[in-house]
């Protein structure tokens, strides 16, 4: 009924348009063309609106499982955040440790060098090979060495403590990862339920196999079996030497 009305309205406007073109009334022709195109757009929008509503309703009914809604809407974005935080924390801890080592190494190398030099002269002194002048120089060096040792060992202690503290990331990231493991378990359970409801367990398993091809596995995690993975550097070396390396 609505369509019939629209058609009659369009026909009336078309007749008016023909008349105004014949009258060579450009202003009226332009106006009529304008209103006709607006009508056209309006009906298109109506159709798009209708389709959008339909899509929205379908999606809502699809996500009726409240647990899945919660998981996809909140928990998975949360988990991504958590895991990003794990990367951030481990990155931070590794850099803190390496920075501390960068400060420790020059100090210990310097102390080692000085103590080696002093030890040579000390041995000469013990075997009475050192002249009085040389002994005076050596005692000055020993005093200096003892003073710098106090400063240097303090630096080493401080930096070592920083390294120890930086390891706190392990505890924190461990807790976060455990939470994510629980979440993954929940997602898995929900998806298994969904597949069972849809009654297409076999198809889904087949698709999963297809997707797994070509995916990089990354580090081998204890408890996770990766088909065709080697377990040690020795196995890598054996495999390569069997290939003529």
């Amino acid at each position: 009924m609505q369509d019939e009305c629209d058609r009659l309205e369009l026909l009336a406007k078309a007749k008016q348009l023909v008349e105004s073109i014949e009258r060579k009334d450009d202003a009226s022709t332009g106006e009529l063309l304008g209103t006709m195109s607006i009508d056209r757009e309006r009906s298109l929008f109506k159709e798009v609106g209708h389709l959008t509503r339909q899509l929205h309703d379908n999606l809502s009914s699809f996500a009726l499982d409240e647990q899945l809604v919660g998981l996809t809407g909140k928990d998975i974005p949360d988990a991504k955040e958590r895991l990003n935080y794990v990367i951030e924390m481990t990155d931070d801890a590794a850099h803190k440790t390496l920075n501390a080592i960068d400060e420790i190494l020059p100090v210990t190398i310097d102390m080692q060098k000085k103590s080696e030099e002093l030890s040579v002269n000390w041995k000469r002194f013990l075997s009475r090979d050192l002249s009085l002048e040389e002994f005076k120089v050596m005692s000055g060096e020993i005093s200096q060495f003892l003073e710098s040792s106090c400063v240097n060992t303090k630096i080493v202690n401080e930096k070592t403590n920083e390294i120890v503290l930086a390891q706190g990331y392990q505890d924190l990231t461990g807790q976060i990862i455990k939470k994510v493991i629980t979440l993954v378990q929940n997602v898995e359970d929900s998806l298994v339920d969904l597949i069972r409801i849809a009654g297409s367990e076999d198809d889904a398993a087949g698709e999963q196999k297809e997707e797994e091809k070509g995916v990089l596995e990354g580090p081998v995690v204890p408890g996770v079996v990766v088909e065709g993975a080697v377990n040690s550097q020795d196995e890598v070396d054996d495999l390569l030497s069997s290939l003529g390396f």
Partner: protein
Amino acid sequence: MKILVVDDFSTMRRIVKNLLRELDFTNLDEADDGQTAWPKLKAGGYDFLVTDWNMPGMTGIELLKTVRANPETANMPVLMVTAEQKREQIIEAAQAGVNGYIIKPFTAATLKEKIDKIFARSAG
């Protein structure tokens, strides 16, 4: 000897560079994936490439294949240091012309051993 270390994790680049420095390699440069590494390698001046496999943009295996396909870099020794440890991947790297393959986590001794082996072979 100028070495390019390629890994998307800055900590791993730092660890590899520290270990290389311990082995008296001091001319070191780094890149965070194949896409940033390749222009450097193409520009020349590098003698050795140490690369990870799994990186965004351009992976290590793609970088290796690109290095081998280009006449100017074709003979450059390439050491792969990666967490990828599937047999088919190790074979793929070998076929692409890798000179050494180390799986993470690794030790300083393993790195030294593989580097010594690579240079003993290229010298002999």
